[in-house]
């Protein structure tokens, strides 16, 4: 696979937006036209209140919605032209959304099955992906036998098995308890660094955004739009020390202030 040109954004929104007709009394819902570039290796977090169009933005990035203004480009091209049948973009949905009737391994193999990859090759990739999230021992179990955190890890393994370049995550850890969430955040950072993944991550949590991102997009509602971009200085490793550092605290403070301004 050719490495993407760093000068050309992996994902670009050119005045792209999508509004939904609400009742006349309601404020317009959805996402007003925005422009946004995401380069290879970025970890971009969308942070904002409910109704600010975060999920709409992610759905546009996943080509699950068509924009009603502007356009979205992947590797400078349209979704189909960019060879996305090759699974260069994948999604980790809000819930684990696993198939309860199949084993963990079969769930992780899903994108490869859809691609019609030969079984032996697929199984090797599944093993690798399960090892990355530390779940190789439960490969044969059904999802119902796992805890919420483990199920989410299976969902991440499924995304990794596809060998994506762009990972879209829609509040993946929102339903988990704080400890599990923190552990998974740390794992995510390491996974993305090691695999050279580009990630677009939606969250409600300021701490999560501060910990994970190279860039935080603070969004405002009514109509959904980008309020501010906040680059996070990538210096130093993202580990427990970072979480306890003054720098982390000051990032959280800045983001809190921006969110408050966005809500005004």
């Amino acid at each position, binding site marked *: 696979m050719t490495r993407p040109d760093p000068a050309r954004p992996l994902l670009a929104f050119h005045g792209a937006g999508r509004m939904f007709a609400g009742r006349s009394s309601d404020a317009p819902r959805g996402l007003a036209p925005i422009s946004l570039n995401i380069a290879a290796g970025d970890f971009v977090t969308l942070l904002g209140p409910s109704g600010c169009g975060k999920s709409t933005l992610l759905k546009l990035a996943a080509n699950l919605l068509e924009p009603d203004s502007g356009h979205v480009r992947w590797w400078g091209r349209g979704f189909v032209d960019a060879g996305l049948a090759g699974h260069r973009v994948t999604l980790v949905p809000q819930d684990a*959304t696993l198939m*309860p009737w199949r084993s963990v391994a079969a769930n992780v193999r*899903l994108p490869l099955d859809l691609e019609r990859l030969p079984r032996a090759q697929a199984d090797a990739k599944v093993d690798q992906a399960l090892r990355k999230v530390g779940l190789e021992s439960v490969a044969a179990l059904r999802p119902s036998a796992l805890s919420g955190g483990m199920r989410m890890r299976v969902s991440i393994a499924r995304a990794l098995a596809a060998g994506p370049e762009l990972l879209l995550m829609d509040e993946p850890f929102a339903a988990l308890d704080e400890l599990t969430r923190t552990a998974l955040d740390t794992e995510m950072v390491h996974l993305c660094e090691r695999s050279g993944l580009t990630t677009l991550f939606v969250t409600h949590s300021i701490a999560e955004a501060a910990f994970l991102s190279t860039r935080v997009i603070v969004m405002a509602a009514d109509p959904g739009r980008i309020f501010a971009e906040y680059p996070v200085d990538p210096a130093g490793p993202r580990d427990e020390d970072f979480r306890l550092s003054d720098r982390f605290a000051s990032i959280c403070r800045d983001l809190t202030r921006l969110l408050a301004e966005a809500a005004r």
Partner: protein
Amino acid sequence: MTGGAFGAMVRGIVGPALVLFFVLGLWQGACDAWSIPPYVLPAPTDIGHALWRDAPTLTHALGSTLLVTLSALGLSIVIGSVIAFILVQNVVIERSLMPYVVVMQVTPVVAVAPLIVILVHNTFAALVLCAMLIAIFPVIANTLQGLKSIDPGLADYFRLHRATRWQTLWRLRLPSALPLFLAGVRVSSGLALVGAVVAEFVAGTGGNSAGLAYEILQSGFQMDIPRMFAALFLITLAGLCLFGVTTGVQNRLLGRWMASR
């Protein structure tokens, strides 16, 4: 673990069995104590005797009724699933056809049965058709609901990964529909038996294709009440077996993931 399961099974059998013996004992005792004649209320022993005496005729009738029931159930499953598939294809088709599926369901088959018996010359076909009209609705309704009850997150995932229509059907729609489909089949199996018996009553067919309902009618005419009870007992037994088999199939197919949910 197995001890617990075994214990639960024993409790599940011993309790109902005790109730059965108690009720049968009361029944027998009452019949003996007040010397109730068998043509008013036969004692369990009278029914047992009738069952033994008329075993050849009754088992033949049972076979006949079961054949109608199972044919109707089989056809309901096949045709019902096909109809559900057609309905789920698009909203216009569903909106246009669903009212007629409902009309079919709300029209009492007992009222339609005489018409079917007149229109369809082959008696067996007429019986199966009547039973099917009763049994097919749960299959249609449940399969339709099942085919629609897809996890929207998974549906998005399939779409993002550009799954073909066939892949989505085979890997997502059918497995998602399975639990509701099987529940529909279970309800349908009971209704197929009801339909078969009702159809036999209406058709009143004797001879080689005489079913249990015909035996009940005949016994009534002959005032052979114990035999009437014996036939009724066999219908109940058939219903219980159908319920057991469909529940077993359901548990076997779904047990791996439904039980632990």
